[in-house]
């Protein structure tokens, strides 16, 4: 039997380490499920299940790439159904249904659980640790401007997360974003588009990889904004807790 100290925190509000920040707070389960539908794994990354989200994302990417699903979607949407049938590789295609529905269902379920945990954490009102200094660096709750996080994420997906010091998500988004940008030939297409050579831009892109980009890009921006807001709120809560504990002495002489 392990010995637990009496003052153990049963329902913590947040975890802060030199790598990342993870916070319990109320989330709309429908929005979380929607992100999972856009891209399996994103719903979990929106919550605190970072590792689960990365795992689902990589699984989705492998299945999608192998099955040429994105290209098939593009052909279907542009009315070219014969081509859609032709490009699909059925070796892994059916697995996609499983991973997609699981991600949506599980993220919805976890969101409901996290909402309960966050209500309990607010009720427990356990002491919040405001900052950590570790071997990898410094991390603390700070007030940051969410629109600055948005701007950096637009320039480089993941940079907004670096700004907000959620390094796990930042590394994931930067590595993933770079891989997708490289294989989709997005940047040559941007260059051709900027020079007005639209047909060249269409030729150079790899459609299978390019269609990963919109959801990945939007998610990086949205998540950076939301995480910055969450960290700001934690700063407020921690400071309020500190003030209440230290500067509400019963010896204070109230004005008469």
């Amino acid at each position, binding site marked *: 039997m392990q010995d637990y100290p009496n003052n153990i925190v049963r329902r913590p509000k947040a975890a802060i380490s030199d790598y990342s920040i993870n916070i319990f707070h109320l989330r709309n389960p*429908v929005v979380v499920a929607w992100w999972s539908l856009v891209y399996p794994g994103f719903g979990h990354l929106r919550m605190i299940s970072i590792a689960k989200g990365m795992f689902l994302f990589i699984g989705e990417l492998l299945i999608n790439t192998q099955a040429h699903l994105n290209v098939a979607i593009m052909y279907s949407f542009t009315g070219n159904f014969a081509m859609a049938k032709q490009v699909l590789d059925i070796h892994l295609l059916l697995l996609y249904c499983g991973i997609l529905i699981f991600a949506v269902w599980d993220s919805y379920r976890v969101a409901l659980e996290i909402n309960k945990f966050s209500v309990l954490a607010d009720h427990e009102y356990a002491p919040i640790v405001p900052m950590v200094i570790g071997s990898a660096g410094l991390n603390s709750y700070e007030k940051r401007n969410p629109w600055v996080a948005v701007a950096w994420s637009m320039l480089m997906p993941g940079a907004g997360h670096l700004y907000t010091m959620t390094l796990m998500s930042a590394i994931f988004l930067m590595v993933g974003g770079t891989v997708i940008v490289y294989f989709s030939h997005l940047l040559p297409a941007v260059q051709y588009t900027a020079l007005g050579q639209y047909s060249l831009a269409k030729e150079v892109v790899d459609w299978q990889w390019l269609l990963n980009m919109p959801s990945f890009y939007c998610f990086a921006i949205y998540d950076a904004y*939301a995480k910055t807001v969450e960290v700001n709120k934690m700063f407020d809560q921690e400071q*309020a807790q500190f003030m209440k504990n230290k500067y509400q002495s019963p010896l204070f002489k109230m004005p008469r």
Partner: protein
Amino acid sequence: MYLVASFHHNLHTEIAIAKVEQLGISKEQILAVPLEKRGETRNIFDTIHHADGVSMFDGGAILGTACMVLGVIYGFVLDWGPIIWGLLGLGSGFLVGFLLDLLFTRVKHSQERRYEQDGELFILIHCDKEQVKEVEKALWDHLALGVAILPTAN
């Protein structure tokens, strides 16, 4: 004498109090009153769907992503190619989603915005008449939103 000051939650606020304590005011002479956050611990069931403060962004992100995917897809057959149509999709989708969000939750958010502009934290300091000037300066120097002095009999 009493001084009342309002602040935002900010690192400067802690520095302001530290400065005041350095002027010889003990912590028993300082009363800090952080205001309860709207929707953070109260009204849980009212706010469960908008609790993370990002709902202004939800609609825009959702429609923006969807329209960007469509823009990239139809860029395949349209003149300007996937990049421009993707960006146009993102911009227009975001705008429409954002406006819809604004429309449906306007009353709620106007309340939240008003709250954000107000002070989040009130500090009451009990000190001698001679110290009032320097305490007041310390508060103003560290981003107090407002400071008031209450003269008292004692």
